């Protein structure tokens, strides 16, 4: 069972929900796919061990063989190669690593070298038993998607995977949510929250992933998010009140289930709820080891 925690708008509480949710389930895998700004480990404080560098293959030109024919320049859809009077210049950050230039070069003058753009790290939380994987995009690197794809290669099909998604609705979100069994959208009860929730709902529906909503900071705004969810038949899975204690714990990097045990129960029943909804949809998943009532 792979569950994404996503949102259109940033700062609605994705990381809070993902971390507390994973801690409450225990024995789960937690993935931080917000590789541009990974924050889960600020709440877990684990010692992370590097698993691998994420690289993309960028061209390297053998200037002795290159005849300056310009085939590679013409082929490249990303404008990552430019022809100068006496050489060909590569712009590695524009390169997507498709390998096309290498294929089209008639002189066999292009080889590929690996350029690191990020890395994957892992840590284990002995208390809860969760194993945690984090992807980090290098500073100044534009492409998050290859890091997210490598991160997903570490998913264990036999375990529950809780996945903290990046904000927005663009390619990093698609890469994260597209592979999931269920998507939880975290929103806040404000006009910005609603606007961005609607965008996110449209994306997740297009990806054909079943979804539900968590309203965070409930009580701080208006009712428009709830009205929208009712009108669209979207289940509201949980409401987290606007609570100064939760906000302060968050600011200090403390998962609130550790200080407010009643929430551990609530997150466990959230998991049961999601399993139940998924089994109704596909009759494929079961919640082994968790009470089947909510």
């Amino acid at each position, binding site marked *: 069972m792979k569950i994404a925690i996503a949102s259109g708008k940033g700062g609605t509480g994705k990381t809070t929900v993902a971390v507390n949710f994973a801690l409450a389930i225990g024995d789960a895998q937690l993935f931080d796919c917000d590789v541009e*700004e990974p924050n889960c480990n600020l709440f877990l404080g684990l010692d992370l061990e590097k698993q691998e560098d994420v690289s993309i293959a960028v061209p390297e030109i053998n200037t002795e063989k290159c005849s300056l024919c310009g085939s590679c320049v013409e082929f490249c859809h990303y404008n990552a190669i430019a022809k100068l009077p006496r050489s060909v210049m590569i712009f590695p950050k524009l390169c*997507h690593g*498709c390998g*096309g230039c290498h294929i089209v070069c008639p002189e066999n003058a292009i080889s590929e070298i690996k350029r690191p753009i990020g890395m994957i790290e892992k840590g284990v939380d002995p208390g809860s038993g969760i194993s945690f994987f984090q992807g980090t995009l290098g500073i100044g690197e534009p492409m998050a998607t290859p890091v997210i794809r490598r991160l997903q290669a570490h998913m264990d099909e036999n375990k529950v995977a809780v996945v903290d998604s*990046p904000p927005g609705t*663009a390619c990093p979100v698609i890469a994260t949510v597209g592979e999931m069994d269920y998507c939880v959208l975290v929103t806040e009860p404000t006009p910005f929250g609603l606007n961005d929730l609607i965008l996110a709902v449209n994306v997740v529906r297009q990806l054909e992933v079943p979804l539900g909503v968590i309203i965070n900071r409930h009580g701080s705004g208006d009712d428009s998010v709830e009205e929208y969810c009712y009108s669209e038949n979207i289940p509201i899975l949980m409401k987290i009140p606007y609570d100064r204690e939760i906000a302060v714990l968050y600011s200090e990097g403390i998962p609130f289930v550790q200080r407010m045990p009643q929430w551990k129960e609530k997150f466990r029943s959230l998991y049961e709820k999601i399993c139940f909804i998924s089994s109704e949809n596909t009759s494929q998943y079961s919640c082994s080891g968790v009470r089947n009532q909510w």
Partner: protein
Amino acid sequence: MVKQLTVISGKGGTGKTTFTSSFAALAENAVIADCDVDAADMHLILQPEISEIHNFFGLDVASINKELCTACGICVSSCRFDAIDSNQVVDTYKCEGCGVCEHVCPEDAVSMIAKKAGEYYCSNTRFGPLVHAKLGIGEEASGKLVSDVRRRASELAEQSGKDLIVIDGPPGTGCAVIAAITGTDLVLVVTEPTKSGVHDLERVVQVAQHFRIPVAVCINKYDINKRLSVSICEYCKDNNIPVLGMLPYDNIVIEAMIAGSSVVEYSGAKFSEGIRSVWNSLVSILFQEEKEDIIRLIQKSEK
């Protein structure tokens, strides 16, 4: 010379759009650009009347002509993005438009098709012109759309004699952020005193410095954790980054949003005063150099 200011945060939800919409209200001669193209919110406050609609074309997408295809599988094995499955069906979400499949196909069965991936708009608002966009559902290339929005905003500023472009940037540090800050005169990072806020501030400051763009910082909701607010100030001091203001948590922000107003229009209270003061500091940083240049020129000519 038109100046450009981009407001970013690294972490989402720290108050970028709250600040930018107030800056839009306070700026006297600016074009506003909403470059948070995949979750744009500025229009909710600025209520634009759209005057121009432009199509945005993102990356090309491979399309396979089933009548010509012999299922040889060369395209499948050549694709680095796993975008073609074993039945020669293209996953348009995974396809990055590189054109390798088109090149390697021995039957000429693959063509690359331009695909509309969104729209961008020029609009009139009560605060002046706004350029904003809507990325199509699940589309890629948001960085490219950000560049289109900025290009149009620059043209508008030149044509209508504006002296500033105020850009509401996206969260994160990747392609959309890079596209929103490159070549600007100043980046304002709106942060909050939480562990995540601090971590993301430091990363995004590194990105701005990587591209050699001056940075200023403003701390929102400073009273949620005063200890961390102090450590943000210390970090900024150590890195020679000016802190232009510290604003408290105030529910007036949400009230103004629900009313469809910028905070400075909605209330003249303390929070609005804080935003005004940040704005005045920004203006003096942006235009100070220019002022000094002009004074120097005048002094020179008088000699």
